[in-house]
């Protein structure tokens, strides 16, 4: 059969945009896939070298549109580490609650994209609606819906407003009450099972060799989560489980997303109950005279898509010397995707890509 080269994206119904894959196909089978990132390249890492420490705080969130909060956390943790700034305990709790809310919001967004891809528009719209409820909470906490700019070096930017706890609980209960509907319509849907089961399989060996993290790795049975391995914020102060699956296919990955959301909600309830009183911000030095001592650091956290790392170096000036993000979509989108697509059908490209939870802006930074 004749081998064809097929361009999948950036303008393609099955592509969320800003990314493309060049496929070599023979009939319906993919022989070779090559990822093309760069459509959204904004040069953040370089830009950050030209901005002061405080100005970068407003920039980092833009690296990932879907979950800006873990980027804020990474930057703050790196600056705190380099500059030796302590974070108050209450701020650590707030960070954890806020990041878990972000995880739920991000997963709902991911679910929208995935369900949409498979044609489950009803579920996709529910997910979008529920994500909006989370954004309402963010708007109340931070003053903005998408680019929150809330976690900053030294703690968080403002304390939780009065009565927020009740509203978080109410919102999460509202979203939680939709879980049976999601299950009936999507997770326990025969169509989803048939489309996703045994599709886009990543073995444990492949996952480890190619640097898979997050759901991709956990779907192969690895209990790997930075929140457990190297607890940050208040994650060591609360009990929770890492959801895993064994099969390593798209079906497992999406089920993990569902289970993680439920786990996050439970975690938020516990953190809200245990949250101590006190200040939430240790004042950073005057931003106009803020030189951070020379040094380098690497910090990491578990974003909604997996391990996120940040290397940052200072040479003692008022701006970072070098910033480098290690993002989960990078390995998932560039290495694993190319490998996994081999032998799959063209109809499953979007399915597999979305199940790997690839967020293009995260690759282009």
């Amino acid at each position, binding site marked *: 059969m004749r081998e064809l080269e097929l361009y999948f994206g950036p303008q393609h119904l099955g592509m969320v945009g800003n990314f493309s894959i060049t496929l070599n196909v023979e009939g319906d089978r993919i022989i070779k896939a090559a990822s093309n990132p760069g459509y959204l390249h904004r040069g953040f890492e370089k830009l950050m070298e030209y*901005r002061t420490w*405080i*100005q*970068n*705080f*407003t*920039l980092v969130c833009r690296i990932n549109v879907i979950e800006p909060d873990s980027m804020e956390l990474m930057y703050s943790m790196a600056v705190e580490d380099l500059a030796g700034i302590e974070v108050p305990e209450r701020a650590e709790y707030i960070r954890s609650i806020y990041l878990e809310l972000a995880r739920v919001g991000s997963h709902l967004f991911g679910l929208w994209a995935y369900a949409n891809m498979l044609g489950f528009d*009803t579920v996709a719209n529910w997910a979008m*609606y529920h994500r909006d409820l989370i954004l*309402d909470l963010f*708007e*109340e906490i*931070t*003053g*903005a819906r998408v*680019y929150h*700019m809330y976690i900053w070096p030294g703690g968080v*930017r*403002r304390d939780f*407003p009065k009565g927020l706890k009740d509203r978080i609980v109410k919102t999460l209960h509202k979203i939680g009450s939709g879980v049976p*509907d999601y*299950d*009936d*319509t*999507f997770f*326990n*849907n*025969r*169509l*989803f*099972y048939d489309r996703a089961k045994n599709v886009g399989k990543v073995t444990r060996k492949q996952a480890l060799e190619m640097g898979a993290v997050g759901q991709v790795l956990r779907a192969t049975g690895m209990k790997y989560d930075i929140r457990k391995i190297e607890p940050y914020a208040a994650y060591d102060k609360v009990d929770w489980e890492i959801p895993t699956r064994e099969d390593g296919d798209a079906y497992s990955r999406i089920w993990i997303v569902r289970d993680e959301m439920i786990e996050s909600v439970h975690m938020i309830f516990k953190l809200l109950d245990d949250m101590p009183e006190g*200040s939430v*911000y240790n*004042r*950073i*030095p*005057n*931003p*106009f*005279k803020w030189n951070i001592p020379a040094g380098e650091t690497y910090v990491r956290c578990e974003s909604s898509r997996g391990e996120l790392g940040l290397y940052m170096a200072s040479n003692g000036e008022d701006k970072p010397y070098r910033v480098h993000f290690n993002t989960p979509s990078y390995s998932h989108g560039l290495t694993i995707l190319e490998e996994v697509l081999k032998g799959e059908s063209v109809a499953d490209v979007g399915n597999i890509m979305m199940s790997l939870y690839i967020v293009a802006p995260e690759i282009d930074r």
Partner: protein
Amino acid sequence: MGKPSIFTPFKAVKFLFKKPKTLRYPFELKEPAAHYRGFHLNDWDACTGCGNCSDICPNDAITMIEIPEIEPELGKKNERPQIDYGRCCFCGLCVDVCPPGSLRLSRDYIHVHFDTGTFISLPKDDKADKENFVPAEEYSVLKASLTHRKQDYEGFVSDLDYTLFDPERVPMPEIPPDVRKLSFVEQVIGYNREEARKEASRCLECKLCEDACPAHLKISDYIKAIYEDKPDESLRKIYEDNPIPSMCGRICMKPCEDACSLSIRGESLSIRWLKRYTADTIADFKKTLEQKPVEPIGKKVAVIGAGPSGLSVAYFLRLKGYEVVVFDNLPGGGGTMRTGPPLYRLPLEGIDKDVDYIASLGVDFKFNTKVGEDVMFEDLLRDYDAVFMGIGTTVSRSTRVKNAEKCTLALDFLRDNKIGEKRKIGKEVIIIGGGNVALDTARETLRLQNMQYPNEGTVTKTVSLEDWDEMPGSEEEITESKEEGVVFNPAWGPKEVVLNEEGNIKGLLCVKVKSVFNEEGKFAPNFDEEKEMLLEGDMIIEAIGQGPDFSFIPAELLEKLEYTERRKVKVDKNGMTSIQKLFAGGDIVNLNLDAVTAIADAKIATEGIDNILFPH
């Protein structure tokens, strides 16, 4: 787990009978959150035009625009921020760095227009801009734009707990009141390196202080040098405008700190103490400054009085190559600084350090030389190319009430205690006056009492015409005097010094003051003659003001000397008096009566002398 059923998804059919969740914009609106980060609001009355918002903006979206209608005043520029909404990312850093908290974000966020020029806006708030801010009932989202906004729609506002500047200053280590009142030990200990650097790091570099400083010191630069741990650089910056940092670092009236943008909602930067830190840290000014006077230009200037203005004129002229001779009747330099501020505020070493440096540049100091006796004023005027007169106000005024001749005059008292023999003090001393000289006198009295009559229950009290709210003494001095145990009697006026049979002071008869100033704001005390009080005391010191001593000027010349309405020596833009070749500055010229204004006068006179001797 087996394969799921194909029928379960049909349960979702029930949603067909539910109401939709989507809001039908613009008929159904969603209210933004209480702290939403939308368009800016700026309270023009509170805004100081400091420009910190513009400096911190990550996108260069804020430009400071000069507003000609606004009068610049102490601590306020006539600039206001203008926002380019094509660049603004609504991060709110400008709000968190705004020292007065005038800049806020509202909950408005919609602007639709065909002209991109309208995206540049000079934000005001609903208080000042009634036209573009409409009441909620008149608001329509269809018209929503930067020119159609809701009143009372404040969103993200500044909170002092979360500001990017530090409103609290590093406390200055001081000797506690109960210890310091026992001796003349210097009260303020001074910052150490860490403290100074931490305090210097608070500076936002907005330079409002530099506008407020009469001598326009490069405050922001020398503070930055302290922060960068470069005291040498700091000293060089100070000496560009101020040749007496050890003195000013201790006794400056610091108008800069009143203008400091941090003082609006917090404590101002300790600019004076930081200057003192620099001056005290550098042991050898000469080595650090490496200043060499330029080639001699063959002109001679005589300076009468080695006070702040005289020293400054000598310094600035010497650097221009003039030959300068300074005459002073005191045994050392400093003038009023040498005789006035008590030792616990300004020790002699601080004065001599500054004077010695100026002398090392080649300025000829003739101390113990009284103009009018040892050298004649008219000779100076004849022999020199110019004469600068910075003689200060050296004669204490008296209340001239009955028996006032029995009282002690404050300036004589202060001078003797500082550079002469310490005075014998009374056990119950009354000081008349409410200004800084009166407070210095009171605190000095207290110390002398504690030294001469330890544990004998001595009393120091002041009596002033002014009530607490209008007392001319600085707040700092009043607080410290109270801490040390000075008793205040505000709003009482002296009527008569009461004597006992032996003719010694028994007390001061006072009458209640109704008001000190008349409706036009002029000094015209009004007394309630019926309310009298006898303050008991065995010694009375008058500290109600002082005047200059022009007795060294021959009568025919003195007649030519013109004065302003406020009885100050009149000088022109060159600092020259109505007598040709005679320049003047300092307390005889300005109304501020402080060292830093004297330096400012000296700068004017220096330029003036240069202009007149070398017309361009």
